[in-house]
């Protein structure tokens, strides 16, 4: 098998597995840049995936056809945004420990989604499979380019490219707009931002809600491109992997995207390594644990220091120094 053939297997697979991670870790960027730690990304993805599953099924049933999964992603975004408001209220207004609230959010999401699945599907622990998922396609025109085409534009989904475009957009919003500056300022030094007339709580609510929207999209994309049905094991650790990508990417949108692609690559390798000469001899455990081990190494500062926003995780109480 030539290197070219190996790449045509690994790269599309990387793009596929990275897309949900990119969306979710971008959500994490919004929340943590505003100063609210979000351990609840896993739960937000579960809510997104669950919503996507039931809405795609409902839309298919009403005859929306191929548009169903796309509309479902939008519904999941709204559901994720609403669900994340619990985290916002508890950790911003009620000043609960943000990590505690995030842990509870994951619990609630896992319990609630399966509870509802059992309610809707008469005691079954999983939803039926959706029939209209977002398929892998060859992008017309671009896939005909010699060499590059088969690697990057065959057997891919539009969501992967959308994810990459959105991360550039998020970078622009956070670093080039007044809104982004305000968001970052409440995450770095909320008291100073408050003095300048920025409503700290409101900015943080927006940050958390956006993390819910993006987490919901991430979960939905995972469902409509990869698993096609929702059960208790659908989002097994994807949210925490996105959290790792956020840290590995040093709380930067482009960094988070790069880290997600890299983690997607590691996941793709662990799945496809059986087909690839030489790699099939490597224990899969190395590929599976690589994202986590590398994140730990990055955090130790051997490869450039990863600094969280200054006020990340600290509730803001007016008048308190």
């Amino acid at each position, binding site marked *: 098998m030539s290197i070219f053939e190996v790449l045509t297997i690994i790269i599309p697979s990387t793009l596929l597995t990275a897309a949900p991670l990119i969306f979710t870790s971008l959500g994490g960027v919004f929340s943590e840049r505003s100063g609210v730690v979000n351990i609840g990304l896993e739960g937000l993805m579960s809510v997104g995936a669950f919503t996507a599953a039931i809405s795609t099924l409902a839309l298919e049933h009403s005859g929306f056809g191929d548009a169903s999964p796309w509309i479902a992603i939008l519904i999941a975004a709204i559901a994720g945004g609403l669900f994340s408001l619990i985290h916002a209220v508890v950790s911003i207004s009620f000043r*609960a420990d943000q990590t505690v609230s995030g*842990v509870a959010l994951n*619990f609630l999401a896992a319990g609630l989604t399966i509870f509802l699945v059992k309610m809707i599907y008469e005691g079954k622990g999983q939803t039926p499979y959706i029939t209209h998922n977002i398929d892998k396609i060859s992008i017309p025109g671009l896939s005909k380019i010699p060499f590059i085409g088969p690697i990057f534009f065959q057997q891919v989904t539009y969501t992967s490219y959308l994810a990459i475009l959105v991360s550039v957009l998020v970078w622009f919003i956070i670093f080039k707009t007044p809104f982004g500056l305000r968001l970052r300022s409440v995450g770095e030094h909320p008291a100073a931002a408050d003095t300048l007339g920025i409503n700290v709580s409101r900015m943080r609510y927006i940050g958390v809600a956006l993390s819910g929207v993006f987490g919901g999209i991430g979960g939905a994309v995972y469902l409509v491109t990869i698993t096609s049905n929702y059960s208790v094991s659908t989002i097994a650790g994807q949210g925490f992997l996105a959290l790792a990508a956020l840290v590995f990417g040093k709380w930067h949108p482009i960094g988070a995207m790069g880290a997600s692609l890299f983690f997607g690559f590691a996941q793709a390798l662990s799945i496809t390594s059986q087909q690839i000469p030489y790699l099939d001899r490597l224990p899969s455990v190395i590929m599976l644990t690589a994202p986590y081990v590398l994140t730990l190494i990055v955090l130790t500062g051997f490869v450039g220091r990863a600094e969280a926003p200054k006020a990340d995780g600290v509730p803001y109480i007016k008048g308190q120094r």
Partner: protein
Amino acid sequence: MIGFLKKINWMTLLIPIVSVILGLLCGAVIMLIIGYNPLLAYQSIVESIFLQPYYGGETIRAMIPLVLAGLAVAFAFRTGLFNIGVEGQLMVGWLASVACAIIFGHLPRVLLLPMSIIAGGAAGALWGYIPGLLKAKFKVHEVISTIMMNYIALYTTAYIIKNFLYHEGERTPTIPASASLASNFLANLTQGSRLHWGFIVVIIAVIAMWYILWKTTKGYELRAVGFSPDASKYAGMNVSRNIVLSLTISGIFAGLGGAMEGLGTYQYMTINSAFTGIGFNGIAVALLGLNSPIGVVFAGALFAGLQTGGLTMQSVAGVPVELIQIIIALIIFFVGSSYVIKWAIERLSRKGHKK
């Protein structure tokens, strides 16, 4: 002055109690909305735990790892550290104890059983030591590093079982009887539940945590670091070393929790594709138990009872067992929002005084 102190103690005790009541009320509301009978559901939980020896035994059985996980989280909390890695520490402890029991299976019981328990604790200690070291040396936040360690544990234990300790049925072989904590006596006593001798380890662990933190100089240092790392440093304490120590001891508790599952409940370890959930429940237990050893026991009893009774609830009242998880999540939210609950109670009591 004494009256004042009494009032504060009541207040701190009141928050977990109010949280549990609110959590159960919310659960009842959810059941009402969907059309179940909440009274029947809660009644079935209480009746099964207290009147049926099997479920009573299973509740205590479920308490064993849950309390140890809760102690692990609470111990680290006392030093100001949030150990989310109990889940991973528990898994490596589970595997280490089972592996030790199988490899040294020829040794007599007096040696093998303590060795296997210690192996579990030691593996957990190692899994806690690494994030501790990363925090002390490189200022890596323990929340992130312990989450990473969880996943490393999940995949590594699965890999080790698959390649070195494989037995039909995606699990390790069963441990020899000489390393087992299970007992026919306890099983007969509770009409065939999986209750095992591990509860003795739990009692020792509860006392050990209380003794270490409140009766030794080292424990005083650990708590001081939790209150204020800067003040402790100024007082001449080695903050870094205390951080490492705290997470290591926390890991021991968690590892023991895993050993109890391996040597007691199951007698083997399966290849896990997802977490056991005991470690994450331990966070809830520690929070509700106000990070005190005795509080953890009560909180552990409550959650173990809810989870075991939840199975009867499902069969009797038809309510999916996931409702219990929802209630537990809500209880954590309420305990976490103690600031608002305190504020509400104070307002209510002030109004009462005016009248």
